[in-house]
């Protein structure tokens, strides 16, 4: 069975390899400080105990007040898996360091995250929109993305269940 590291275990390992790189840990994940993230992730890949040579998954999450970039790291030799995160607090100019130099497999997932979340990856060799076309208004997976292109309205003014206000009445089709 794959051993899933808790956030605390990964935090200890990262702190041992690159002191001062951990911001905080949660039950499942270890949040790395943005300025040390690249160094810490590279050390986690190269250290024989951690040996996270395979980047299983990379994606973004919009947590309203911040963006999280989630890395699921995997070691094939030691059969273990861990979850690291890096946060970006500036919604307008969200930016984290690119890990393409560490894992080649990251480039396409970072491009996708850039396309759908608008998070810039510094150092990415070819950062451009891959699923949507250039000039598409906005980044659809952001939680505040509601309007559709061309001024079309999706029906509701906001997503259901996201505010305490009562649901708007259903508009008749004209």
């Amino acid at each position, binding site marked *: *069975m*794959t051993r899933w590291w808790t956030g605390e275990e990964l935090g200890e390992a990262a702190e041992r390899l690159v002191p001062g790189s951990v911001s905080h840990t949660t039950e499942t994940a270890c949040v790395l400080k943005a300025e040390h993230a690249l160094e810490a992730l590279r050390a986690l890949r190269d250290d024989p105990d951690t040996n996270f040579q395979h980047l299983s998954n990379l*994606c973004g999450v919009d947590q309203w007040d911040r963006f999280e970039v989630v890395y699921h790291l995997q070691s094939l030799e030691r*059969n273990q898996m861990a979850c690291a995160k890096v946060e970006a607090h500036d919604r307008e100019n969200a930016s984290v360091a690119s890990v393409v130099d560490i*894992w*080649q*497999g990251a480039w396409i997932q970072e491009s*996708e995250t850039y396309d759908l979340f608008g998070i810039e990856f510094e150092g990415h060799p070819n950062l451009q929109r891959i699923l949507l*076309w250039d000039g598409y208004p906005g980044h659809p997976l952001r939680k505040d993305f509601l309007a559709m292109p061309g001024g079309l309205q999706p029906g509701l003014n906001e997503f259901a269940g996201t505010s305490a206000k009562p649901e708007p009445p259903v508009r008749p089709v004209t």
Partner: protein
Amino acid sequence: MSEIVQSEPFVMNIGPQHPSTHGVFRVKATVDGERVIDAEMVIGYLHRSMEKLAEERTYTQNIPFTDRTDYLSSMSNNLGYCLAVEKLAGIEVPPRGQAIRVIMAELQRLASHCMGAGAFANDTGAWQTPIMWFMREREKILDIFEMTSGARLTCNYMRIGGVAFELPEGFEEEVRALIGPLRQTIADGEGLLSGNEIFLARARNVAVIPPDMAVNASLSGPMLRGSGVAWDIRKADPYCGYEQYDFDIPIGYQGDAYDRFIVRLEEMRQSLRIVEQALDGLPGGPHSTEVPLALRPPAGEAYARIESPRGELGYYLVSDEGPSPHRFHIRPPSLINLSVLKEMTVGGSIADAIVALGSIDIVVGEIDR
């Protein structure tokens, strides 16, 4: 020679509508004569923004979306998603439900590899005969799916906590009747192609991926195993009781297109072994646990992955205790396997690029989602 024949690079589009791209997908190849000097993939033609749509629907309502990502292996997609929700909400599946899931996932792997291996044979010039043999067998598997779930491709059969319905009457006989002829078809296909001089000339030493690059580029599934890395999530991180079944992990030695084809054929044999064992030991009892219709998992996150026919299919879910996921992310094996397209094609001829693309076995519905 260079004084007599002069060539200059030009950009050639392969696709978006081209039989070798297996879907709506474009390769922007820069070629110098017959040599490919740069290859850029253009995707997004089939983008439906499923990850956004899923954030508005309940956990159960999202299961049909997963059918439509990798439309050649809907059972595997259902399974991966249900496992992620079960991990998030802490739901146990009864043994019978798990065994049914294993049978369905392995039948789906057989159906998908029938298509993958047959289409690859087509790409290498073994025109139509092998694919027709494999499609004949795949048709029987799809009939079994239709008998079980009512649909052939978009089955929507798995549910959170188990499967949707009990197996129909006569299911076991149908599956057992399938195993012998399918084994024969695999042997026929291998006999026709594996020693065939034309096939070897087209597939051997084409699109070679060394093992260290395969790991660094996050490849998975037959792409990773074809390069000689014995990594199978069914063995490494067993789900649905895969640890009870006896099967082997086939690997390749050279990491070329031929090895990936042979790995797929061998995987089909191993899948048949698993199906036989699962049918023999099919436990009784309920096929599913009771799960509330409007499931609200506790706040948190879960990442579950399975070995889908194309590789590591992962689902990453974030819950905010609401009735629908806060974030729904699919880790698509096809997309990540495709990301080494440039490394596989540059330096080869255009004909080799077609073989390289065929050996990845992409499904564009999963790439674009």
